[in-house]
């Protein structure tokens, strides 16, 4: 087994979480907000992880209250967001995937600016730069996404993903230059 390497001081671990919301009437606080999913991003000295949990589909009662322009595209939220998720993974620097999407989705369809979250407890072995460590870390992050979905949102408070959701993540080993090296989804 590869010996554990200490995390260099200059590389701060960071865990960010964000919610994906559709605001049916932007102007009014009393209007319906539909919770579509959650994003999370973890950066450690060795790894960069980016995960999404998004609803598979919306119920008819929800589709009925969506702005017309969104009804077709958001009928299956996970499918709608996957291209943007993959694009952010491929183009953004480690720790800036969510920020990239926040810069694009700030209106009716909102990806909230991320909250800085406590770094989840990670198994010691994930500090090892090997595939098993990466997969374990991804499992930790995706579990955290699921667990944190109800905890870090500023507004609306205490929402949960209503209905089945797909959870998907990308994991890459960080290198000193270039984008993260994906090793499997």
């Amino acid at each position, binding site marked *: 087994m590869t010996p554990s390497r200490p995390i260099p001081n200059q590389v701060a671990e960071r865990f960010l979480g964000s919610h994906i919301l559709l605001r049916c009437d932007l*102007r*009014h*606080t009393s209007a319906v907000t539909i919770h579509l999913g959650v994003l999370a991003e973890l950066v450690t000295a060795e790894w960069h992880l980016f995960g999404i949990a998004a609803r598979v589909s919306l119920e008819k009662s929800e589709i009925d209250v969506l702005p017309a*322009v969104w009804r077709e595209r958001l009928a299956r939220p996970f499918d709608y967001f996957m291209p943007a998720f993959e694009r952010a993974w491929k183009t953004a620097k480690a720790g800036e995937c969510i920020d990239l999407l926040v810069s694009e989705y700030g209106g009716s369809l909102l990806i*909230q600016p991320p909250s800085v979250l406590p770094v989840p407890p990670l198994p010691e072995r994930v500090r090892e730069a090997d595939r098993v460590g990466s997969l374990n870390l991804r499992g930790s992050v995706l579990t955290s996404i699921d667990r944190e979905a109800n905890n870090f949102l500023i507004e609306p408070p205490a929402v949960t993903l209503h209905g089945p959701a797909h959870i998907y993540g990308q994991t890459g080993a960080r290198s000193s230059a270039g984008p993260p090296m994906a090793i499997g989804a």
Partner: protein
Amino acid sequence: MNQPTAGTVAASTAATASYQLFDAEVLKLRANWAQCAIAPGCAWQRCSENAQSDSAPFDVRDKGADLRGKAKPGFVKPDVSRAAHEKITSDLAALLDLPIPPVTLFRLPDPVPADPRTKAPGDPFICVSAWAFPSCDEWRIHAAVITEQEKASTIVPLSAVWVFDSWISAEDRNYSKHILASPTGNPPLKIACVDYAFSLSRSWQAGTPAKGAAAWQMPFEVAKRDAATVTAMAARIEGLENEAIERIVRRIGPEWLPSARGELIVKGLLQRRGEIRKIVGVP
């Protein structure tokens, strides 16, 4: 309210045309907020973290008024008077009936949190921009579903906005990002132009070269502006009275706009108002 569509605003009617498609609720808000620097009775509360961009905007809500808004700046950045620029721009646009949403200034109650990532101190002296439509997003989000007819319907209002942008020396315009659109499939397309932090005194600081016309970067291929609209908007700007311009700028408190910057803005607006035809190239 007139609803301009491409090619329907002839020179004879352009002088009185309305270039926005806001509904009565937003027009009422605009009428109220444009009367003063700080709209009375507001109780805005932060309801999101800061976004990671130059102005670090964040969402706010006023539960009592049942309103949402977008606020900036997210932390102290004294290099540019972002909140004041947004407010002045909105109030001038209201005089000209342009598709720029209402803006009010606001002082957040203490304590104002620091930016969680940069650790920079929070700025209590913000502006809040209202949402113009029940549903809208950046143009690029809807680019695939906006019809050709809807695109064409924006030529007149965006031609008017281009003259305005030229007057106030709006820089950094990226129309696919700075135009919010609310497509329905049927023209005219409802649009709102936002994000005017980089204009006015930022563009007119000592030592910077004189500014010409704003960039014309439409979010789709349009070769020409609507000439009648450009001429009409230039005339409308020329017709603004000194007193109205000076009042809009000078009523802003020094917490949002240092007095020297305010006077720079007044000087620039009055000077460029007199040169607007030359700036936008109309006789």
